[in-house]
């Protein structure tokens, strides 16, 4: 680099990013250990760490002294922890992608019909195959439902090789309405066992997470998050508007297609095994933007990490708040996320005069 003039802005920003990401990482580790400790079978923090160490081949630290300790950790709690991390990261990344692609801070993966389509898919299987249907069928149906609905919304909104954002959002509303109607119909025709199952699925839960589910969801989520990160620079340019982004060399239509496919993958992967979990995708990217600014280079990884932390914390609350009761996770995220989002809106409006 010859004759580099002083960078106009010094990089204290970068230090803040490092601190924020590091802090989230520490919180994630702490929450993982705490999640390992709490539950019907008590395990101490050192035992949790010792068990983890032994499983990666390090002969350090104590193993759980409780006879069921190892099983509680490795068959119940850890798959659930990993699933919370995977789904949280996937949902928050999907939210960041959606908001970037639509240039609208209120966009949510639900807009393009992923969640409602997944719900219809899952409910269809629950009704037609009976209450004893294997979880993997439900997951597969939810996944397919989510992807198909997204494809439908996108296909309907497209004309002359272009997709107008407003048309896409309105098409999403129409398709979401139809999906809601279908879901109501399915609830109506279902027997009471299937009905309970549908309702419960829609509330969202990480209970019953297995390593098999993790093995499916994790690779999909990794592909989604990495893919989103690769789009970071183009997403930044898109904030200037479609035309300006094109003038800077972005193939906007292509970018939008890739982003929507990634969102569908991320959300379907999460929702398929856990049911509907609201607000994580909407709130987490906002929080990150407030701290680190809107650049997608920091937003995407920080949102993924932040989503993991938020969902892990929410799940910890869901399963420990009331003894012996696994509260629906989607209920917790909505109850906390809704008012929190409102507070966020007020605060932003007061400090910056809104998002305009």
């Amino acid at each position, binding site marked *: *680099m*010859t*004759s*580099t*003039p*002083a*960078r*106009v*802005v010094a*990089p204290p920003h*970068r230090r803040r990013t490092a601190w924020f990401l590091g802090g989230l990482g520490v919180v994630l580790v702490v929450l993982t250990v705490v999640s390992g400790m709490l539950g019907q079978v008590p395990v101490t923090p050192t035992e949790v760490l010792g068990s983890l160490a032994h499983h990666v081949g390090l002969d350090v630290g104590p193993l759980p002294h409780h006879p069921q300790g190892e099983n509680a950790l490795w068959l119940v709690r850890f798959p659930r922890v990993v699933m919370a991390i995977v789904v949280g990261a996937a949902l928050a990344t999907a939210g960041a992608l959606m908001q970037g692609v639509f*240039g*609208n*801070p209120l966009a949510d993966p639900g807009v393009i019909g992923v969640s409602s389509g997944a719900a219809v898919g899952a409910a269809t299987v629950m009704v037609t195959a009976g209450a004893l249907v294997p979880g993997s069928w439900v997951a597969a149906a939810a996944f397919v439902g989510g992807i198909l609905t997204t494809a439908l919304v996108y296909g309907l909104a497209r004309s002359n090789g272009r997709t107008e954002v407003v048309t896409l959002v309105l098409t999403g509303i129409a398709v979401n309405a139809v999906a809601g109607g279908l879901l109501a119909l399915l609830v109506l025709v279902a027997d009471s066992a299937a009905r309970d199952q549908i309702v419960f699925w829609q509330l969202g839960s990480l209970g019953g997470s297995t390593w098999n589910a993790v093995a499916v969801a994790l690779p999909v989520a990794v592909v989604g998050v990495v893919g989103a990160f690769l789009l970071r*620079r183009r997403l*930044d*340019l898109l*904030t*200037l*508007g479609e*035309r*300006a982004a*094109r*003038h*800077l*060399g*972005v*193939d906007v239509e292509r970018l939008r297609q890739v982003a929507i496919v990634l969102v569908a993958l991320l959300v379907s992967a999460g929702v398929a095994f856990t049911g509907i979990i609201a607000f994580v995708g909407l709130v987490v990217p906002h929080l990150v*933007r407030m701290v680190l*600014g*809107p*650049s997608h280079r920091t937003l995407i990884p920080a949102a993924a990490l932040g989503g993991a932390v938020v969902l892990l914390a929410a799940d910890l609350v869901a399963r420990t708040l009331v003894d012996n009761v696994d509260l629906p996770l989607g209920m917790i995220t909505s109850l906390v996320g809704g008012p929190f989002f409102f507070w966020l809106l007020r605060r932003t409006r007061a400090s*910056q*005069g*809104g*998002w*305009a």
Partner: protein
Amino acid sequence: MSGRWREALRPVRAGRPRTADDGLPPSSHPAGTLLAQVTGVRLERGGRLVLDDADLAVRAGEVHALLGPNGAGKSTLLGVLTGDLVPEAGTVTVDGREVGAWHPTGLARRRAVLLQQVTVSFPFTAEEIVRMGRAPWARTAAEDDDDDAVASAMAAVDVTHLAARTVPSLSGGERARVALARVLAQRTGVLLLDEPTAALDLGHQELVLQLAREHARAGGAVVVVVHDLGLAAAYADRVTVVSEGRVRACGPTREVLTASLLSDVWRFPVEVLEHPHGGAPLVVPVRAHTRATTPASR
């Protein structure tokens, strides 16, 4: 990414395939070189003919002003030239190639566009916005100039002091200048500016057109839409007057800007006066009430 890392990754980056088109076009050309051209373009929108047999030639060394009343089709003509609007008939070429045949990146290395309305949907800082102008040069040799291009573009339009401010916190005129800095940082041969002076105060209006002129003198080409005929008279080498979707006149500024043509196109009496101290002609609307009170000026 810090400079050190960038240096360390240089060999890796060099091996990566370049986007779209590997030619790095120069930003400077011999005066008179045809850099972009619109020929015989016809465009309908919503059943209305908005451009009819319109021509526009963009040549190096020239500031080319697009003039015309509201709704005449100036922005539409510019939109056709950028490739945003696809005409029903006629051809549009950039650097000798059909505009639709270019990859967006190839176009972005040849021409920069300032749109009339500039919105930013998230609170990026002014410097981040200007740096976006360097996107077309990512992973090319020109990437080395990024910091220099950003700093000098910001200095040129007087926004260096706003670098760390977020765009929503800026005034309309400041935002417009930040957007212009982004366009300048792109360092392309052709600049297409749609009303760059609309939100600016008098001093900055002059500054922007001086910059346009310097860009043309340095071997670039500028097409600029302005409403102030006086500014056009003072800075443009060539003007094209558009009216009702048709090119009414095109030629050297002094030849085109006549009282009769302007009065006819704008449907308002206009006088073109010689400047008392020499220099560019003055274009002045004829104001009846001032006439009545100062008959001496007749």
